[in-house]
């Protein structure tokens, strides 16, 4: 099985808006403009006083849709069964290498400078001493052969291993009753997940893919892999883990994606 590069993706935009649509609909656009002009001329005052502005309308629509999205976060949290396991697969089904995904191209990945790297801990954690990669490698390893499902709709089977997150959080004395666990990536990428998903048995801090250390594009030295969230909720190149009760909007939520995004 090989990974086919897709022609277009929101996560890797390659070209601007399609200009042909503008050309094809030129007549329509001009007609709309004429109508607008007429309407504007008739009641310029009224139109400018009212929120006749498209931007304001867009904002109102966004505010309604985002409210529904927050409601859907709560619905998903209620639907989440912390004991339900995601399907697992065999080593023969694993796709190598994993499929790359980020908001930039694979060529633009800036490998993490491992020299000074240590995993920082923040927030509601008793033992905040940073962890060296060697210390993390010495922790018991858990392997998960699970599906990575992207919000775009594609999926692949990956073989990830590393310490179990629940065990790790317990070990450092994290407050397991806190609401969120936030993962700060090296590229200013931050995503937070709910504590119930963080404590799910198939949530690990992955250091290896198919038995080998994860390579640079896929999150070396440490990334989150949870079987119960969409791909974008699995930050790569983790610098710090923060346990908190404060909701923080992640990189993709700021763009309008749903926060819970549970599978």
């Amino acid at each position, binding site marked *: 099985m090989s990974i086919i590069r897709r022609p277009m993706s929101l996560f890797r935009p390659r070209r601007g808006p399609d200009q042909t649509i503008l050309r094809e609909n030129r007549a329509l656009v001009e007609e709309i403009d004429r109508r607008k002009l007429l309407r504007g001329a008739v009641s310029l005052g009224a139109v400018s006083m009212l929120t006749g502005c498209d931007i304001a309308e867009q904002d109102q629509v966004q505010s309604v*849709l985002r409210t529904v999205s927050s409601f859907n976060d709560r619905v998903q949290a209620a639907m989440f069964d912390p004991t339900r396991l995601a399907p697992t697969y065999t080593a023969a089904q694993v796709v190598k290498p994993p499929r790359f995904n980020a908001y930039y191209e694979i060529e633009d990945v800036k490998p993490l400078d491992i020299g000074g790297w240590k995993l920082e801990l923040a927030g509601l954690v008793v033992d905040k001493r940073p962890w060296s990669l060697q210390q993390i490698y010495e922790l018991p390893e858990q392997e998960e052969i699970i*599906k990575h499902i992207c919000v775009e*709709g594609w999926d692949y089977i990956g073989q990830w291993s590393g310490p179990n997150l629940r065990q790790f959080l317990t070990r450092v004395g994290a407050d397991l009753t806190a609401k969120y666990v936030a993962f700060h990536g090296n590229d200013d990428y931050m995503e937070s997940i709910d504590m119930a998903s963080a404590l799910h048995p198939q949530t690990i801090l992955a250091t290896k893919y198919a038995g080998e250390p994860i390579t640079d594009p896929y999150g070396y030295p440490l990334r989150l892999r949870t*079987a119960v969230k969409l791909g974008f909720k699995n930050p790569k190149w983790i610098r710090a883990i923060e346990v908190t009760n404060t909701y923080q909007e992640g990189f993709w939520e700021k*763009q309008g994606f*749903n926060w819970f995004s549970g599978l």
Partner: protein
Amino acid sequence: MNAGNRMHPLIIRVMHWTNAVAMIIMIMSGWKIYNDEVIFGFLHFPDAITLGPWAQHGLQWHFFGMWILVLNGMAYLGYGLASGRFRRLLLPIRLREVIGEAIAALTFRLPHADLTRYNAVQKTLYVGVILIIIVQVISGLAIWKPVQFSFLVALFSDFQGARLAHFLGMTAIVLFLLVHVALALLVPRTILAMLTGGPRIGGDHADAPIPTHSSNM
């Protein structure tokens, strides 16, 4: 309200048009979501007919529209079953009639004298689209929650199978819509009936739980 009942009671009309809005939201936002990871390389829906500037907005609309669709749809199914409307209007469907009336319809020889009774082709299309929408909700749940509802994913073989089923369900619904709208435009009285209620019907036709059913169908 003897003999005062309309063919389409107010509740049916409200649910019909609510469903129409929800369906348009679901289809157009679904096309936006589809465009982000196409199933068929040759098929990309033009931005002009998709909802939301970017995929995330398509997703926002989709997960907003789903509530309208499902809540309205459950109310509709509950009402249709409890009131006897489904049994009265949509059943029975006889294959011989479906074939005969389909041929009559295609040659424009199907009479429409009585709007209050559906012909066999209508019955088939309405029952068919209701069942397809139910399957569409099931494949949608499988895509939305493939771990929580992994048993639903299994119905469609795997995650991509569920996506394909969801796409095919959309295609079937769009085809139904094209036929539905075209036929309604051919017989505009039907559109008026769905707005104002349509012809008054006798008491034994009314949408109310009737223990013994009239046999004049």
